[in-house]
């Protein structure tokens, strides 16, 4: 079978394609109910803008999950960097936007490093560590911010404009998200360290026997995940203009949900960041569609839950079929 054929078949069979189709279907429905959902400048913009922050988070979570870990603290990390962004603008008047973005990313990475180190060196399960740091980071930002809140007026106009700035009708934040996605996808698919992430997630014991730098890779995963959460925090500040200490509560589960819906196996080793990103888009688009098709958006969470369950059940079914095929292949 030629590479071309194989490529085509994979694309058709892939989970990513399936989700894209679902997304298109959702958009179609929404648009048929309300033209402006797609065919108004505003609708088009929101369509692209709304998912961009979650995409960045989901890509981060995906990377961590692929190494058979999980990071529940990203929501809190987002809150910290989002608030930090505001504080920087207030406390250091005239600080360049670029500096703020970099600081946000670095702080996020630092928080991720703490998680990674605890998991890798402490030999403590990620679920527990990040559950702990989720409390700790959130507590930290709550203590720091107290009842203080960053208002749009506290941040320079040009920064806030980034939240809505468009290049050829494409919002800047969306472009940022896409760049992040492309970089992550290349790394995981086509570099040694990227593939080792999958290996470690697929069978940690074997990875150690094999002599892969497990510790280093796991820490890297958490650092990258944290850095992306940090970036998401800055994006959050730019997009919403107001930051309270409660920002990003529950986003960790949205991000993990997006990844799972996108076909990232919760116990690592398989799935792509593309899937995770599409999962994020699907979640957010459905959010915005529900009110339009007349379902009170209170039901959004229920839909998300149903999607996650559906996704993993589907995966199980496909996996079962796959291994049956392989069995038969061997029996002949």
């Amino acid at each position, binding site marked *: 079978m030629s590479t071309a054929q194989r490529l085509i078949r994979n694309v058709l069979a892939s989970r990513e394609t399936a989700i894209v189709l679902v997304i298109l279907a959702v958009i179609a429905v929404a648009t048929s109910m*309300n033209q402006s959902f797609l065919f108004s400048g505003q609708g088009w913009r929101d369509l692209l803008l709304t998912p961009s922050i979650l995409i960045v988070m989901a890509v981060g979570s995906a990377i961590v999950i692929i190494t058979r870990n999980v990071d529940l603290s990203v929501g809190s990390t987002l809150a910290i960097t989002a608030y930090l962004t505001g504080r920087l603008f207030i406390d250091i008047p005239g600080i360049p936007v670029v500096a703020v973005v970099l600081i946000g990313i670095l702080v996020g990475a630092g928080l991720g490093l703490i998680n990674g180190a605890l998991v890798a060196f402490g030999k403590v399960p990620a679920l527990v560590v990040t559950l702990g740091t989720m409390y700790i980071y959130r507590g930290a930002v*709550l203590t720091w911010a107290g*009842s203080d*809140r960053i208002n*749009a007026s506290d941040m320079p106009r040009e920064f806030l404009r980034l939240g809505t700035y468009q290049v050829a009708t494409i919002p800047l934040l969306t472009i940022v998200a896409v760049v992040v996605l492309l970089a992550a996808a290349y790394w995981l698919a086509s570099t040694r360290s990227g593939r080792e992430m999958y290996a470690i997630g697929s069978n940690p014991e074997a990875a150690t026997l094999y002599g892969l730098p497990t510790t280093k890779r796991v820490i890297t995963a958490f650092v990258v995940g944290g850095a992306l959460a940090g970036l998401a925090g800055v994006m959050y500040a730019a997009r*919403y203009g107001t930051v309270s200490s*409660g920002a990003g509560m529950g986003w960790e589960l949205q991000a993990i949900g997006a990844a799972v819906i996108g076909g990232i196996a919760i116990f690592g080793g398989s799935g792509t960041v593309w899937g995770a990103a599409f999962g994020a888009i699907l979640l957010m688009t459905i*959010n915005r569609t529900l009110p339009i098709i007349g379902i009170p*958006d209170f039901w959004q969470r229920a839909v998300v839950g149903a999607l996650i369950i559906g996704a993993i059940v589907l995966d199980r079914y496909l996996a079962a079929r796959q291994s049956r095929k392989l069995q038969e292949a061997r029996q002949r």
Partner: protein
Amino acid sequence: GDGGNGGDAGSDGEDLNITFLPKNLGNPYFDTSNAGGAEAIEEFGGSYSEVGPQEATPDGQVQYINTAAQQGEDALVISANDPSAICDALNEARDVGVAVVTFDSDTSPDCRDLFINQASAEGIASAQVELVAEQIGGEGQIAILSAAANATNQNHWIELMEAELEANYPDIELVDVVYGDDDDQRSFDQTAALLQTHSDLDAIVSPTTVGIAAAARYISDSNYAGEVAVTGLGTPNQMREYIEDGTVEAFALWNPEDLGYLAAWAAHALATGEIEGNEGDTFEAGRLGEYTVGEDGEVLLGDPFVFTAENIDDFDF
């Protein structure tokens, strides 16, 4: 304080412990009102403390009410997240001698001593209706972006506004009421959804400071700027830039600082035994002068105040 009354209140207010319990922390409106409370307590020389839940839920508040009871505070000044859910806890606290003053959002009368009403519901409702009516020229579609769907005060206002519209503004259609839960991001997304669903909306009225700010911000940098009017209840600091960039013409609010200030003095009056909280009781409220307890133990602060480009710079809260 001023006047002999305030004076000797000060002397026996020395050792009063008063706790402020807002709907939730991180809400600038309550920061302002509680600042007023602190100022008052400063004046009569008690000790002020503020506690509160992160989300505006009744069960969150109960724990703090309990703690206040455990600590044997002299008075608790609270803005209720639910009219009845926190009643048992409040009454338990009153049983151990804590004076309970509600402000901004009331509970049922039988589980607090006094309610400090920021403005008569009628006053607030009509003020907002007038504002929106004149901003959209008396006709068109409007929607309301409220806080939590069971926030007592908000719902009451909305009813009255609906009535007012029915009665005096036949050409204005209230197309939708949505809830942002006093959460900025949610209010922001709700605004987006509103404009999405009702393509020819003319105005959004938000009777909550978080909501109006979020709505104004969304509109200010969307294509709807200038087309869709925003008004309601907001704080000058949050709304200043939108007044300046013209997104918002005018909005209303009482002075939350005075509200907290008055609540604190009321608590003081109860704790010192100066009043029982019965209808007709009168007490001294520092710089605000003398107030009288109305029916159901209500104390009315005054009428709402309208902020516009002309006067907004005189305020900083």
